[in-house]
């Protein structure tokens, strides 16, 4: 009797203690959880959201949006539609004087010239029934379907048009999808170029980084510490400084060209063009990203036992076989981690290529920055960024299938 009571109490106490521990453990990770949520999950979610949602037009002109939705985009616009457009646009100004022009900016992205057409409407004081005639008296543009079709495209709040635009497709007023005109199509080309540059930089980093990491891992502690500092040194210098240093080195009157001319290898009139082209992009990016390749490889190579290679050699393997079949497979986790790190960083790079790459340094991140900073079309920027994110995740998934993420070792 006594013992059962004890047992029950004990179980209860134990459960309570475990619960307490669980709560404690949860509270300990809670700050990190909140941090990840606030700084990572929420921004990405809002990014994906903003790429498909833009309510400037529908918020300002709700009734007009409905009427535009019902319009077939071909027949002449109805008097009702024009009336609701004019009255709602005028009314929106009372809420906030900036709204009409903000709406005009959005329409202008589909139909150039809309900003000044909207201004006409805003400054005309005698707009009354019949609205259609009054508008066409302002400008014959209002008679044409183009500006109304543009409005029909931007009217829905939920829209796939930014995602289409991100892959060089355009949504028409009828809801069809047509390819972007040749002179404006650029995104697919840049997605391809970005992936190619990232792949090449990763390859060069791997080729250059492997021997260095090997040296670091197998040199004496004193030497390897010294070398490690040299590898890490660039990390303590600003990215811009490192990039600008490459400009000083590679430009026509730069250090490298001066040196080659001085030793007579090239003629003064035929200095090498190593700046503002793909060559400069690859050199500068490889240099900047190299430490991210070396460090994970170094930490993995450090743990590889030297006697395994020795054993292979003593059993009759040639040095190459011993390296390739015994040593190299053990470095895969580090190599894989380095490649993944460098590739993902390279995909998002834009300052370095923009500064040293000239025309060919135009990568997809430049376009994202362009729409963020210049056109203020944040929805399009979000859509392109989302596609880039999906692309990277797909590659990550592929990597996981081929190499296995559990085999990766970062440090």
């Amino acid at each position, binding site marked *: 009797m006594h013992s059962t009571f004890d047992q029950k109490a004990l179980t209860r106490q134990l459960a309570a203690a475990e619960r307490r521990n669980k709560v404690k453990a949860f509270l300990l990770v809670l700050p990190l959880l909140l941090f990840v949520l606030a700084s990572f999950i929420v921004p990405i979610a809002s990014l994906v959201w903003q790429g498909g949602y833009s309510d400037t037009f529908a918020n300002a002109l709700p009734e007009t949006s409905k009427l535009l939705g019902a319009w077939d985009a071909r027949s002449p616009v109805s008097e009702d539609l024009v009336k609701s457009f004019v009255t709602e646009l005028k009314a929106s100004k009372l809420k*906030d*004087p*900036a*709204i009409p*022009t*903000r709406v*005009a*900016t959005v329409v*202008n*992205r589909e139909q*150039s*010239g*809309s*900003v*000044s057409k909207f201004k006409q409407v805003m400054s005309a004081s005698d707009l009354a029934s019949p609205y259609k005639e009054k508008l066409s008296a302002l400008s014959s543009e209002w008679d044409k379907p183009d500006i109304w079709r543009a409005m029909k495209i931007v009217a829905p709040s939920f829209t796939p048009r930014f995602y289409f635009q991100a892959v060089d497709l355009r949504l028409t007023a009828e809801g069809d999808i047509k390819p972007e005109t040749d*002179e*404006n*199509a*650029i995104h697919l*080309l*840049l997605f391809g170029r970005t992936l190619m540059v990232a792949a090449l930089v990763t390859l060069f980093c791997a080729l250059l980084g492997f021997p260095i990491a090997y040296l670091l891992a197998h040199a004496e502690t004193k030497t390897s510490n010294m070398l490690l500092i040299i590898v890490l040194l660039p990390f303590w210098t600003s990215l811009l400084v490192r990039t600008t240093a490459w400009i000083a080195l590679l*430009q*026509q*009157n*730069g250090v490298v060209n001066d040196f080659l001319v001085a030793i007579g290898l090239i003629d003064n009139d035929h200095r090498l063009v190593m*700046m*503002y082209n793909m060559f400069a992009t690859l050199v500068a990016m490889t240099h900047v990203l190299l430490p991210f390749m070396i460090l994970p490889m170094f930490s993995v190579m450090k743990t590889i036992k030297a006697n395994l290679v020795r054993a292979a050699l003593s059993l009759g393997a040639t040095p190459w076989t011993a390296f390739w079949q015994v040593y190299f497979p053990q470095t895969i986790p580090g190599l894989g981690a380095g490649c993944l790190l460098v590739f993902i960083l390279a995909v998002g790079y834009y300052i370095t290529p*923009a500064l040293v790459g*000239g*025309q060919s340094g*135009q990568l997809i991140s430049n*376009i994202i920055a*362009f729409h*963020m*900073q*210049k*056109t*203020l*079309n944040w929805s399009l920027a979000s859509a392109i960024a989302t596609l880039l994110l999906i692309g990277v995740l797909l590659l990550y998934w592929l990597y996981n299938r081929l190499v296995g993420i559990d085999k990766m070792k970062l440090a």
Partner: protein
Amino acid sequence: MKKWNGKLMLLGAVGTLAMSVAAAEAAQLTVISWGGAYTKSQTEAYQKPWMAKTGNTIVSADYNGGLAEVKAQVESKNVTWDVVDVETSEAISGCNDGLFEKIDASKLPKGDNGASPMDDFVPGAITDCAISTIAYANVFGYDSTKFAGDKPTKVADFFDLKKFPGKRGLKKEAKVNLEMALMADGVAAADVYKVLATKEGVDRAFKKLETIKGSIVWWEAGAQPPQLLASGEVTMTTAYNGRLFTPAVTENKPFVIVWDGQQQVFDTWAIPKGSKNKDLALDFIAFSTSTKPLADQARYIPYGPARKSSAPLVGKFQDDKTDMAPHMPTNPANMGNAIVQDVKFWADHYDELNERFVSWIGK
């Protein structure tokens, strides 16, 4: 002793508190501009006299143009900038987007000659949300040591790679470049925007740019063109006129400005919507755009004052030797073939033309 320490600490705490209250009362204005020689000219001509007059302090910071930061501040309702130096076209599009406070220009001080502000400012200098300080010019310049015989004199020479070999520096933006291409292709200054408003005109501008595409080095910040010229990376480059003037005069660099085909743009003050020091910002703008400060600025940089009443007051450069008048974009001798950037045109066509420009560069 312990007790004494405690009292001392308390006293210290009270003192700190009192000081922070005092600091909060002395007003502080955050003014954002483009940096370099340009910000220096503003500091000397506007900021220092205003601080001396009002006793308030100004915190200056640099940015690289664009409305992204203003938009982020306004949308997050955490506006830390009080006054921003923006180009007219951005002042207008920012005003359209509701990013800037409206400014009633009629309340600005009269000119020193008594002219009302609306008459005193040159046409186009006043917009709904922004008041212009100066007009600068987009010009092109060359390194005179690079061309032995004939020197470039016309905008068409910029596109003549045979006669004037070497790389060309151009700003990575559609604005300015398209107008320049058309003028080089023989379009009269007065017709540039009429032609550029048509599909054929845009095609024509791109076709002209295409002829030098392989020789272009793109720049983005105003400080780059003089560097590109000085390092010999390019033989000719477009630039803001003041950026070529300063090294040529103060460092004797062999830079020569070609005024043919110059494109004038206003720089303006605007107040981000929701600024916590709006009244103070307005006071600063009214002060700095009055006749004398505008004329004083020309002592430090060759940009033309936006008020007519300032022009007669423009004198010599800060070295007290160089006459500023011949270096001003507004100097009649420099105005032979000049356009003023059409902000209305760019408000309508910015998206369309930039989209095409960006994809043209990328290919």
